[in-house]
């Protein structure tokens, strides 16, 4: 009996093994088919990109001409956009936008536009004593800045915007800002490489001009990193963390910075703090922990 059943058992086992291997093969093939297909628009490989990546360790909020000297080496394989334009050109469009961005609160504070004056008057009614003292000082600082840099046109944001609109962008990032380069034509990979330049001038404006990328890629990845799925909460942590990254990279986050003046306007507890102090004292333990995780994630995206 044993002699008869053993070979049968052995045959059955072999069939099972073959079937099992076949099942594994099917599973692997199906999984492989579900793997996202690489974006067909990607037309740069790592080697090609490394040729156009520029050393940008020394970045500054104020655009420094020396740093903006084009230092790119391009190969014939480089795609059209990168062949004709360089990210680090002395680009008046970027420069003007950074002036606006970094002095946003002063433009609001010194505006001579009647609606803005009215808004400021109303806002003043809501301020606590602490806020009033701080923001009076801040206004004086803005006035001094206006005297020192009349070219910033701090009393009239519209005229500097006009100036910006009449300028010609001569870099890739500038052309992205003016819309000459349609961001939607860039692949996710290309955008990720722009972010990886880790240029403060680009990163300061990146969430605004690469909004769709931030929504489509960074937002969802951050949900996974934080294991939190509240859309608005993730957006908020992303915003707070991105700002912290800018601060750590050299952006002005002192109590007199535009970002801190805005936060003082919103909450009197923030007046007189710098940005890292704001994170540590105004935000909850939970927010701080999530920002810490999100910062590590953003470092991976930007470096």
């Amino acid at each position, binding site marked *: 009996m044993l002699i008869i059943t053993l070979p049968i058992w052995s045959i059955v086992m072999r069939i099972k093994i073959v079937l*099992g291997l076949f*099942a594994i093969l099917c599973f692997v093939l199906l999984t492989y088919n579900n793997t996202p297909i690489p974006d067909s628009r990607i037309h740069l490989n790592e080697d090609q990109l490394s040729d156009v990546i520029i050393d940008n360790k020394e970045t500054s909020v104020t655009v420094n001409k020396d740093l903006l000297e084009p230092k790119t080496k391009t190969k014939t394989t480089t795609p059209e956009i990168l062949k004709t334009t360089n990210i680090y050109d002395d680009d008046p469009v970027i420069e003007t936008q950074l002036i606006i961005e970094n002095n946003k609160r002063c433009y609001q504070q010194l505006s001579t536009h009647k609606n803005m004056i*009215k808004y400021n008057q109303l806002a003043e009614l809501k301020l606590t004593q602490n806020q009033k003292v701080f923001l009076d000082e801040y206004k004086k600082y803005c006035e001094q800045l206006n005297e020192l840099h009349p070219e910033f046109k701090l009393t009239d944001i519209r005229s500097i915007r006009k100036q910006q609109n009449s300028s010609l962008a001569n870099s890739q990032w500038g052309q992205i800002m003016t819309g000459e380069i349609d961001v939607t034509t860039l692949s996710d990979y290309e955008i990720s490489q722009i972010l990886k330049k880790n240029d403060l001038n680009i990163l300061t404006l990146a969430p605004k001009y690469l909004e769709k990328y931030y929504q*489509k890629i960074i937002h969802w990845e951050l949900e996974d990193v*934080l*294991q939190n799925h*509240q859309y608005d909460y993730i957006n908020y942590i992303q915003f707070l963390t991105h700002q912290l990254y800018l601060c750590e990279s050299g952006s002005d986050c002192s109590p007199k910075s535009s970002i801190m003046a805005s936060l003082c306007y919103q909450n009197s507890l923030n007046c007189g703090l710098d940005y890292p102090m704001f994170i540590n004292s105004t935000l*909850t333990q939970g927010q701080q922990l999530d920002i810490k995780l999100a910062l590590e994630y953003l470092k991976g995206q930007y470096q």
Partner: protein
Amino acid sequence: MKSIIKTVFLAAILLILFFYFFQNTPVIKKDTNTISNQAISANLIKEDTTNKIKIKKQTNDILTSNEGEPEKNEGEIKETQIDYITAFRDWQYFENCYTDIEDFGNNKDPLDTLAERFENNPRESQQQPSAQQNYYYQHHVDICKTLINEVGDENDNYSQIRSKLNQRFTSIKPKTDEEKQLERALQMIKQLESYKLEYNKAHTPESNLPPLESNDIHNQIENFTIEMMSVYNGNSPLTQDQVQLIEQYSEKIESLQNIVRQSKQINAEKIEKIESVIDGYLNSMDDYLHRVQSADAFILIATELYKFEYMQNKSTVIKTMQAQTSIQDLYYLSLLNNITIPLVACSMNYPCDAESDLILSYCLGLKDSMFNQACGTSLEEFYFNFYIGANQLGDVNNYFTYLVNRYAN
């Protein structure tokens, strides 16, 4: 040894096959009484979840029992025997039926509408609704149909039915304590809204000119404008004198307009006065909330009390909360409100099970994104096992504890 390897190998294959074939099978839980460990740690143990009000079920039961009854005349709201709270929730829920009404009118399958929504859903790259989502969407469609049949006619549009549901709700007299509390909460919200309207109006700059003087200036502006227009007849080029005259009129008009402009000022005292009225009223609502047992009333009042509006001074209620918790960031407070207030309501027997409005709205994306993870679970399970991150859990727990300690009877 070989047989062990073979056994392990076979087990692995079986596991893979099992996973492959059964991963998409919908498991629809009808009810659940389990609460996650996190929920327990968050003091969310409820007395008896089985006592939850199954509002939709009640509605369906009532409808079934009314099927044989004759219908009322056209234009009248069909008579129902539902209670005040159910009628309120039905009226609220109908907000979610907007697209369904359109679908019924266009003879379109509402499930196709759900599928279309998923085509552009970036969350988790889920491009089509799961079986569970289709099941619950059908459930939602049935609720909408039920509500339409209950109060409306075939030709009624969305606003007509919603208005009829509102009429039905307001025509019911609250009987129980909880119903009376809901009625009181709604009255309070209405009163608060009227104060807020007054507050907004107070921000419009007012002229401090005496009425007679103000009228006189307006008349002068009008006369100068007429005279200026009459200088030029439009047929021949303007002479030097005419140009000069027009400029003179223009300057006069401009200087009068400047007087009016400069006389307009914001009345800070008036704003401050209304602000203190609003703050006082919020304090009264806060006092009332201590006595409230109705979850619906709690949601309405607490949402108003802890709502922070920019360009408005912090209320005493918010200041008290900030002094006793670590929540200082008021934008974050608004995000915490969205989660924590419903959780407190759940602990007050508000429907939070798999068929509740709250869970349906997450499962189907009726108000927020679509979460397949929400379908078939309770709100607490969904929140603590998926929606809220581990780091945020502590903040939710602290805020939840604050609200419960402050308002629990």
